[in-house]
């Protein structure tokens, strides 16, 4: 079985829910090394996304992603708005015209999306950004899919790689985003954007991993 539009909706909704649950946590992380608004920003955006999805009922997977992207872009602001916006916009482009998506297609779409985020934000691994969670996740995901793992197993590996990448941001000195202004003082703190990206991979795992292949 491949990923359906319904599962895609569940994925976005799940992401909205975990963002809401972790709003204060993300904001706290951002207070330590940023400006204390990442949870607030993402939650404002995802609430708007969920409302928009409810009111517009996008017809297919690509439309769901594009609606998510445009809503994030116009409601989040900050660094995370255009970056997550770019991610979802690219997912929308990669899934254009598809009623369902296979594990391989999902892995390729997500890879392209993360690369688009890298192109927009110019961050690379170990800059202490969301890339540190996303990049390991796509590597794990595509390797797992290449190894023939089922989607559940592949997504589990992606999620746990994202988690490792997120934790690996703790000792890093930030080179991108607001945390970079702190210089050495940014070390010893977990990056908020890497944390929300790990939550994103968790949402994908829960929504797509269940009995799909």
């Amino acid at each position, binding site marked *: 079985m491949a990923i359906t539009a319904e599962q895609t909706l569940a994925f976005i909704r799940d992401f909205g829910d975990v963002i809401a649950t972790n709003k204060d946590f993300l904001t706290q992380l951002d*207070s330590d090394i940023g*400006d204390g608004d990442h949870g607030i920003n993402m939650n404002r955006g995802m609430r708007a996304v969920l409302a928009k999805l409810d009111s517009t009922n996008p017809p297919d997977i690509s439309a769901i992603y594009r609606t998510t992207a445009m809503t994030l872009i116009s409601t989040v*602001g*900050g660094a995370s708005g255009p970056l997550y916006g770019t991610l979802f916009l690219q997912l929308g482009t990669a899934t254009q015209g598809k009623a369902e998506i296979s594990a391989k297609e999902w892995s390729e779409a997500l890879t392209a999306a993360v690369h688009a985020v890298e192109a927009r934000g110019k961050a690379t691994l170990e800059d202490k950004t969301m890339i540190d969670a996303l990049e390991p996740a796509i590597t794990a995901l595509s390797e797992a899919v290449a190894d023939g793992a089922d989607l559940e197993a592949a997504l589990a590996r992606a999620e746990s790689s994202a988690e490792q990448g997120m934790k690996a941001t703790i000792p890093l000195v930030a080179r991108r985003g*607001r945390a970079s*202004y702190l*210089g050495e003082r940014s070390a010893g703190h977990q990056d908020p954007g890497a944390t929300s990206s790990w939550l994103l991979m968790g949402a994908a795992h829960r929504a797509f991993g269940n009995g799909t292949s």
Partner: protein
Amino acid sequence: MKKLINDPEAVVREELQGIEAAHGDLVRVSYDPYYIVRKDAPVQNKTAIISGGGSGHEPMHGGFVGVGMLDGACPGEVFTSPTPDQMAAATQAVSGGKGVLHIVKNYTGDVLNFEMAADMARADGIEVEAVVIDDDVAVKDSLYTAGRRGVGTTVLAEKITGAAAEAGASLSEVAELCRKVNANGRSMGMALTSCTVPAAGKPTFDLGEDEMEIGIGIHGEPGRERRKLASANEVAEMLAQPIVDDLPFRQGDRVLAFLNSMGGTPLIELYVVYQALDKYLRGRGLTIERNLIGPYITSLEMAGCSITLLRLDDELTRLWDAPVNTAGLRWGV
């Protein structure tokens, strides 16, 4: 959190309502999306200038919309960059056929959102140039990082480019002038207290009774170092020295000294700092030819100050002195 607000979520909207009610003679306010433009926008055959950024820095930027300064400003949520749709709509609303300059403070969020907005405006056939202000010497400048933050020089750039645009300069001239201001301006700030983002409800960082943060930005970010509380004279030197060393300023240079309150520091303290700044700069062979003292680029109710020095030449001095009529800066009219 003790603030004169109604609902943390409604602060920006209600602030805009206040600005509209108070300054309807100078500006028009759009609520969907949020932006503020000159009452007479778009001014035909004038290069337009917009800026924008998170709210919480008042009077910047909305208070600088008016004749001789900005054509428009886009307020984001508190300390959060506005979104591309706001900037694109504001660009449209001020465009008078000679192109639009985007003055962008160097924060990842602001830069990325303004980039998207410029793409959208260009798609609508409007010529757009963006100049990124990155004047904060507290941040190490490096190709491998996000670079320096944009802080106090932004206010000066908005005033000076606004004067040039009013006098008929083309988009490329105004953009070039903006780059010149940025190249000749440097800033550094410090905090005695944190500030509280309304939606967060508690201070962004904690500072002991005998501590201060040196090298803060304007978003309640912690600074480069935490130090024992120092005297006003010491603080003035701690901020001014890295600025003077960075540019580098030269003996005999004339400067505009902009001593800014972060919001919670009252004027009485700014003047105490100013006397120290004045002495320090004299000692370095610099002459303060113009000054600006007060809360102009704030960080909510944070206590603290920042210093910006802009190296002046006759052109910049003349444009600084040109008439301006905004809620936040006014002279000559």
